[in-house]
């Protein structure tokens, strides 16, 4: 026990004396939260739309006024020449083009059907689809309104929908993104710091000196694990506080459940980091290997894209992805208010993960060769 305490003491002394690391530990979470949460938004706003109105009727004006009222669209120049609109698309002056032909209103009144054309810049496919969807909705709405005004729909039966959004009633994307960014942050700190720290001892040669002492393997690994566990939890706290203050992040669930999960998760990640560093010889190797795992873990975890949309193989791979479990758990706890029982399977998986990674780290740490 005395040995472990002196190892921890040494580790903390070193961390607090590290003039590069310390500011990073404090500043990194804030910068990430402020920049990333806003940057990673999936909300579609301010889609630039150009309208080519050849009709100039009350119907076409109604449609344009609806577009102007919509938060999704930013109506740019009104053109009366289709080719000019296409040039706009070419020059990236607009994201989507709406073409309303001459005789639109007249055809609609006479035949009840009329064609308008939508051309979208589909370099960003999901953006184009969303814009298309929003635009079609607005056109439908306009159509309905025109029909009602013309009293042609008196006897039409309609299904009226009444929607309510649970757990995140304002559809605030930040509530979804923020926990995700927090998970990335905690993982980053845990994996890189622990992995780099151990291999540094190898590089400097202090590991050689430690190896001839009676320090036991598990003591050495614990001495590396505990400090970074504490730092990781500290980062989480800092992030949660910042989230609360800056974005008004809801804490629907119990913090006790969250911190228990975070602790087990950190042990799993730290174990993995230590395992990587026991198998590496230089900091460079550690960086490359950790980076490889980080990237895959984070992209697969559903931090930015829904796991359900991923190919089956990717979904299966998530069984081995600790980030996936934490990503699920933290969102469930914070936003949905999930209790322990609802997260039992995540708890079980991450605990198994932690046991395996720490055991492997202890076993693979070699004092002799």
């Amino acid at each position, binding site marked *: 026990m*005395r*040995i472990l305490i*002196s*190892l921890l*003491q*040494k580790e903390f*002394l*070193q961390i607090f*004396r*590290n003039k590069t690391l310390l500011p990073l530990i404090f500043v990194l979470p804030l910068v990430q939260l402020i920049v990333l949460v806003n940057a990673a938004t999936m909300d579609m706003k301010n889609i630039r739309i150009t309208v080519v109105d050849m009709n100039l009727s009350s119907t076409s004006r109604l449609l344009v006024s609806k577009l102007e009222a919509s938060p999704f669209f930013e109506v740019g120049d009104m053109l009366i020449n289709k080719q000019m609109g296409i040039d706009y698309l070419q020059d990236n002056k607009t994201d989507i083009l709406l073409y309303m032909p001459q005789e639109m209103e007249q055809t609609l009144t006479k035949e009840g059907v009329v064609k308008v054309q939508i051309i979208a810049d589909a370099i960003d496919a999901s953006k184009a689809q969303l814009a298309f969807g929003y635009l079609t909705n607005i056109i439908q709405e306009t159509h309905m309104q025109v029909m009602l005004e013309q009293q042609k729909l008196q006897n039409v039966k309609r299904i009226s929908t009444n929607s309510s959004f649970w757990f995140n009633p304002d559809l605030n994307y930040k509530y979804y993104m923020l926990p995700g960014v927090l998970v990335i942050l905690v993982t980053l700190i845990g994996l890189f710091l622990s992995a780099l720290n151990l291999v540094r001892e190898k590089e*400097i*040669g*202090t*590991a*050689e*000196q*430690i*190896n*001839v*002492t*009676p*320090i036991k393997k598990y003591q050495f690994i614990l001495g590396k694990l505990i400090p970074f566990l504490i730092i990781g939890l500290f980062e989480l706290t800092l992030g949660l506080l910042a989230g609360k203050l800056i974005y008004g992040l809801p804490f629907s669930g119990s913090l006790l459940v969250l911190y228990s999960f975070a602790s087990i998760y950190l042990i799993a990640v730290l174990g993995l980091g230590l395992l990587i560093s026991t198998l590496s010889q230089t900091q460079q190797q550690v960086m490359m290997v950790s980076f490889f795992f980080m990237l895959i873990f984070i992209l697969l975890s559903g931090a930015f894209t829904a796991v359900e949309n991923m190919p089956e193989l990717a979904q299966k791979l998530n069984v081995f992805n600790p980030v996936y479990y934490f990503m699920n758990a933290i969102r469930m706890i914070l936003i949905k208010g999930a209790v322990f029982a609802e997260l039992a399977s995540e708890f079980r998986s991450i605990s198994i993960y932690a046991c395996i990674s720490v055991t492997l780290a202890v076993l693979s740490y070699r*004092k*002799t*060769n």
Partner: protein
Amino acid sequence: MIQFTNISKSFDEVKAVRNVSLSIDEGQLFGFIGPDGAGKTTLFRMLNSLLIADEGSIELFGLDPHKDYKKVRQIIGYMPGKFSLYYDLSIEENLNFFATVFGTTIEENYHLIEDIYKQIEPFKKRHAGKLSGGMKQKLALCCALIHKPKLLLLDEPTTGVDAVSRREFWDMLKSLKSKGITIVVSTPYMDEAGMCDSVALMQNGQIHAVESPKAIVDNFQKELLAVKCNDMYKALLTLRNYENCYNVYPFGEYLHYIDKRDSKPIEDINDCLLKHDLQEIEINPVKPDIEDCFIELTRKLSV
């Protein structure tokens, strides 16, 4: 007593240590002398349980470093060739850390390190990374001694240390020896061999001789001449091509020359050098030192 029996160790293709057998008595100051790459560090790492020998066995005060590594680590104080204490901890913190790790305290064994520690104590708050080479070395020695080891294992402790500090360091080792600690030290510097009770000359993973430095010098049979003149390089080339030359090599400001014949050939050599237009010639018989012996030994083996 420390006993190596037929020890061999290879790294892939390189045979670092080949069939080494020797014994070191308790209480000795024992030196491994040899150039870089001779296998000294490998031998040390096998002795302190960090490496496992491919063949052969090691006995260390009745323990096997491989099987009884836990006990061995308690009784060995190891100072690696590269400074390997924590750069970002102070002198005091480093010492405290290693004392605790070995389950002891500074106070308990202060008498062992007192003489050395006093010299660095004024800087005890300074980080180890900011110490001078000599101070680093003293700190490392303190850390290796703090758990009162029976055997002190020093791997090239004086490499990169100035001449005065080196002498001081050897004085420290002698005083530690008088406290009953067995000391095994390796060094590439031949002149340090004389400080040891017994030395092993090592090259290419093999031990050539294990004797007291005096015995090694006494065993040197040949007549040794020190040669000096106005153009040393030309003299070296000339003597190398001289028909009766056995060996000639630069040695400080002189050339050391050994003749094939047993008689003292000072006149012959003088003539030979004069013939090649060399001037200010000075030739004197000298006593061999340990370096001459080492050169002679390696020559014998390579021929």
